[in-house]
């Protein structure tokens, strides 16, 4: 096909049905081999890994993970002196893992077990005068951290403890002339960063500051003939962009601009029929990260077998409703 050199071709015998039980078994079996090289050496993102597994199970309407074990693990990540959470026991606290921790605590209904003031203080102290957020004490800035900060605070019902206005101003400085967003001012537009910026603006109730159609155009350019979505021009499609791109489009009310049936076909083709789980693309190795975002993408696309997912926080919508959170999304007519 002319003009497309970077895409995949879906085989005729690729999976085409959602393998619910297989995915449940994959997630539940994932943490059992804790001595494997891959498991041990991925401790630097363990809190997020647990969040991916737990959320995936919730979308599968499964509650088999023991909540006490989850609570014990996440509290081992807590740094009482600084008030934030690290990725695992031996790690410095960071905004990325503080958000994952708060999301986990919300899902196991243990938000009240944590010192809310301390966590809020950890987050708020990372905000800089230009509105950006450091990820941790070492000073790295990224729009992902703005999203993590806003999302953490909104779950804890303390959004306005930070300076939302300057936070939004920083996000807007990361908007590029193609209408999409990068991680810092001037950096290349990237679908993952777009999700973070759109999510942050949604939490702040500032979606009207976006050029919706220009952004939606850029997001829809991510769809390739295989139906899959990539994160930037000339990159291969990846199931995780079924979340980053799709949820951003959902928030701005433009999912109807995508070819949904072909996207569903791509996501389903990325399942592993033997082991369960989703990979980044058909035929590759599965992992919990792509499993969550494959399921979340299918949920957003209306799969009735899955629990409804909130497009801003990537948590079950029922939980977001129970927490009383009203997160801005635009209708298709906006």
């Amino acid at each position, binding site marked *: 096909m002319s003009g497309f050199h970077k895409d995949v071709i879906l085989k005729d015998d690729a999976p085409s049905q959602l393998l619910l039980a297989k995915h449940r078994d994959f997630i539940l079996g994932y943490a059992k081999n804790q001595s494997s090289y891959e498991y041990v050496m991925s401790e630097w993102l363990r809190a997020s890994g647990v969040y991916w597994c737990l959320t995936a199970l919730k979308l599968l309407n499964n509650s088999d993970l023991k909540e006490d074990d989850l609570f014990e693990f996440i509290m081992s990540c807590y740094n009482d002196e600084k008030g934030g959470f690290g990725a695992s026991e031996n790690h410095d606290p960071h905004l990325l893992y503080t958000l994952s921790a708060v999301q986990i605590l919300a899902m196991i209904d243990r938000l009240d077990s944590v010192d809310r003031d301390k966590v809020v203080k950890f987050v708020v102290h990372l905000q800089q005068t230009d509105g950006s957020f450091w990820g941790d004490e070492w000073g790295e800035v990224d729009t992902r951290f703005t999203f993590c900060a806003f999302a953490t605070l909104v779950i804890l019902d303390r959004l306005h403890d930070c300076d939302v206005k300057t936070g939004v101003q920083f996000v807007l400085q990361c908007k590029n002339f193609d209408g999409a967003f990068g*991680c810092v001012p001037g950096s290349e537009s990237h679908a993952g960063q777009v999700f973070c910026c759109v999510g942050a603006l949604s939490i702040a109730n500032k979606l009207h500051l976006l050029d919706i159609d220009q952004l939606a155009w850029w997001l829809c350019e991510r769809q390739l003939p295989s139906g899959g979505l990539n994160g930037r021009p000339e990159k291969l499609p990846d199931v995780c962009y079924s979340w980053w791109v799709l949820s951003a489009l959902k928030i701005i009310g433009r999912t109807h601009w995508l070819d949904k049936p072909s996207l569903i076909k791509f996501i389903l083709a990325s399942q592993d029929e033997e082991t369960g789980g989703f990979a980044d693309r058909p035929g590759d190795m599965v992992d919990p990260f792509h499993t969550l975002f494959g399921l979340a993408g299918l949920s957003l696309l209306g799969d009735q077998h899955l629990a409804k997912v909130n497009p801003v926080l990537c948590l079950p919508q029922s939980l977001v409703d129970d927490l009383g959170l009203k997160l801005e999304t635009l209708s298709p007519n906006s």
Partner: protein
Amino acid sequence: MANDDNVDHLRTVERLSNILKITPNLKSISIIQHDEPLILEEQHLALSKKTFKELGLFSRQTFLKFIKKESSPSRDSTLDELSTVLIVLNPDDNKYWNYRKRLCQKCSKNQTDKLFLELKLSSCSLKLKPKCSEPFIHARWLLTNYREIVSEQTIFSQLKMCEDSAEHYKHNYYSWIHRLWVIKTFFSTKLLEKELEWSKGWMESHISQFCGMNYRFNLLLISSAHQNPDSDVQKCKTFVNEVSYVVDLVLFYPETESLWCYLGLLLSYCSTNQIECRDNTLFRVRSIDNRFAKRFKERKF
């Protein structure tokens, strides 16, 4: 783990740590199927696949054991070696980078050699895993907090590090963030001119990588901001010339999505800044009839 294995692993840690610290201009680090744990030949380092995994697990376990001990010269020296090796074997784990940052904080003012070593180690780390943000984060932290190590030579080596990692891993998002940070943080007109020339060469030899084009666009914005503020004509000319140049490339490589994206970016900028070039551009590309051209012509700039 058997004691003999531990002794062997500790020796390998020491050897690897020395190689990383002492070898000038290490060109590559790779993992190969081999019986020898480490092979260093003409500045190319190879680790055996077996060693890579076993050493990673051993080093991590030993690091966690030693970090709990009281500070002593022997304990600190072992942790120094282990963290040196671990930022190469598992560079995504910021635990080891943060440990090394704390080591730097204990350096006195005249110990700049230790700080230069940190820059070298972050560069080494990228040889094995070029798509990793932590080495760049470490370099930015060093250059922000220790201006005494900033020089023309340091800047050049940072740009080289970015170029090498961008070559090694296509569409390397982290490389380009760092490159732009270096230019913005250590701006000079001489540096900007060199980069504008370099970015043109890079673009022409990597036309399927939009990152290089986004970077060049930012250089033009910086250049424009430093021009005579009264000279709108000059600024206009810069971007009109760039549009014309990119159209030339598009006419030569019409099936290249990145070029169309860059052209779209430039036209959006020009439209926002009342620089007229849309009509001429559409006229020049009128005969191209592929998916990219169709989408481009549908857009409202």
